[in-house]
């Protein structure tokens, strides 16, 4: 196993009296596809939000490529190369697909004067290429808000790729997608991982998808880490089965 890109150590987060995360420690290996599963309300999205800097954490440490990031804000972490997609799918709904991709260009090195520049032809081509990759090229001039939910998910995924992140955190990428399209999406996620070298950290409820996709899976329950291991061992882990079936 290669060095971890994300290293979470003893992270805790409570909202008032509700403990969403308690002493969570995990690591995501560079270049891997790592899964995060658990019943509803087990604290998966809270952990994602903590990692990307959406809210401050109460205790613990989060490192990205060895750098402590638990005190940085969302924009700073995104510019370091760690991006997330949203469970509810968020695209710029009044802009067309091409513009959605153009604005997703990495902002790592953008300087003040860059805001007054225009987009060079190769950037436009890359945007078209990525729309082709997710199968939305024919809809490239459509307003994003007019796309179906599944298409918006694909657009959001293309936007994330346009940003050329080192790590991509995906919150339920297949939720709400037509079952026949899920295989295509799994294929694209794997290709993004293999061809673009993007490490993926995926929250997923669809067991078939996550078992097929991830090489290592963490399972959370009641805000704590319950088990982790390769898909085969997670599938047979009695604690995981109990957590999902409520035999707690």
């Amino acid at each position: 196993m290669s060095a971890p890109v994300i290293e979470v150590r003893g992270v805790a987060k409570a909202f008032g009296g509700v403990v969403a995360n308690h002493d969570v420690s995990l690591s995501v290996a560079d270049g891997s596809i790592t899964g995060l599963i658990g019943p509803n309300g087990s604290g998966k999205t809270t952990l994602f939000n903590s990692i990307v800097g959406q809210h401050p954490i109460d205790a613990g440490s989060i490192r990205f490529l060895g750098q402590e990031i638990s005190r940085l804000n969302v924009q700073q972490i995104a510019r370091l190369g760690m991006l997330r997609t949203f469970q509810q799918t968020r695209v710029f709904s009044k802009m067309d697909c091409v513009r959605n991709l153009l604005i997703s260009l990495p902002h790592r090195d953008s300087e003040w004067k860059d805001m007054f520049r225009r987009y060079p032809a190769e950037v436009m081509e890359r945007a078209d290429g990525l729309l082709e990759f997710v199968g939305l090229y024919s809809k490239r001039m459509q307003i994003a808000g007019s796309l179906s939910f599944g298409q918006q998910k694909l657009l959001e995924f293309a936007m994330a790729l346009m940003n050329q992140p080192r790590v991509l955190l995906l919150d339920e990428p297949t939720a709400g997608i037509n079952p026949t399209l899920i295989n295509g999406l799994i294929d694209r996620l794997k290709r993004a991982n293999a061809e673009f070298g993007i490490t993926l950290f995926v929250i997923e409820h669809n067991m078939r998808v996550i078992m097929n996709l991830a090489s290592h899976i963490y399972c959370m329950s009641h805000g704590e880490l319950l088990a982790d291991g390769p898909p085969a061992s997670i599938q047979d882990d009695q604690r995981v089965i109990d957590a999902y079936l409520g035999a707690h």
Partner: protein
Amino acid sequence: MSLRLGLTPRSLTGHLLLLAAGVAAPFLFPGHTIQLAVFWVFVLFALTWDIMGGQMGYNSLGNILFFGLGMYVCAVAQIAIVYDVAQYTAASGAVRVDFSPKEYYQGLALGVVLAALVPVVFAVVLSWILFGLRGPYYAIGTLGVAIAAAELTNSWNYVGGGMGIAMPVFPGGPGMRERFFYAACMAATILCYLFLRWLYRTRFSLAINAIRDDEDKAEALGLHTSRYKMVAWSVSAFFLGIAGALFGNMTGFIEPMETAFPTLTFGIFMVAMTLLGGKGTLWGPVIGSTLFYALRELTWTYLLGWQYIALGVLIIVNVVYFQQGIVGWLRQRRPQWFAPHAETPADKRLETGGKA
């Protein structure tokens, strides 16, 4: 130049025709030169309001602050290069003070430059404080700042307080004065239009549109959102400051409540005009302000006493039944007129169209 501004030969002709109409107007209607100058100021109001309210989704109700600020900064600069400001304002117009033509024009030039720059400084400082607020909270916050500015100016004797300032008298003849300020207001508005036309073709435009659609998502992508918001407000402040400086000199007498910081008239007009024409477009504010100006003149002439009720009805109908405005409605009907810029090769232009 024409490429950077996206002017095709056809649209260039259209622009030149409008320019010719603008130049001819004060000669065709010499008795209405000041009203026509006010029309240009209205267009500038709507254009600058739309940067934030339309393109970026931040509905500022306090942009009039920069207008009044520019007006006062210019007045003080004009007076200060010749007289002691406190002495001048204490006399409140009772003392006749003379400015030589040279002093007047030098003062005006300096005043306009400062009137553009000081509001930008204010916009930068205020954006640190106010951009933590979103939605209606931002609207109310900006409104509060504008009202506070009016009240503070009202009780600040150095700038004349509620008594106001009698502006230096224009050195030319009476007809000259109107034409001079008409030309200045028109030039400022055209400059603002051309600047925005260029600005809306850069990455800046996409960024502020992204902030309008989903600011959290923009942050999640790593956009320097506060940078863009600060620049957007500064651009508004820059042109509103110039407009204030010119308007104050054109009026000849300035005071805080009705002339410099009229939140309830000009401050609301800029919002109403933009909504009428269609927010988030370049031509929406121009068309909206033209129509609004015409309606305002008509109601002031034929419905005097009822003019605010008529305008109120217009705003209500606009907001309830016609939210997209004139240009917004056109964009729904004819999406191909609003295809993206020239970077896209013509053969790839949209076939499928805009909004659902």
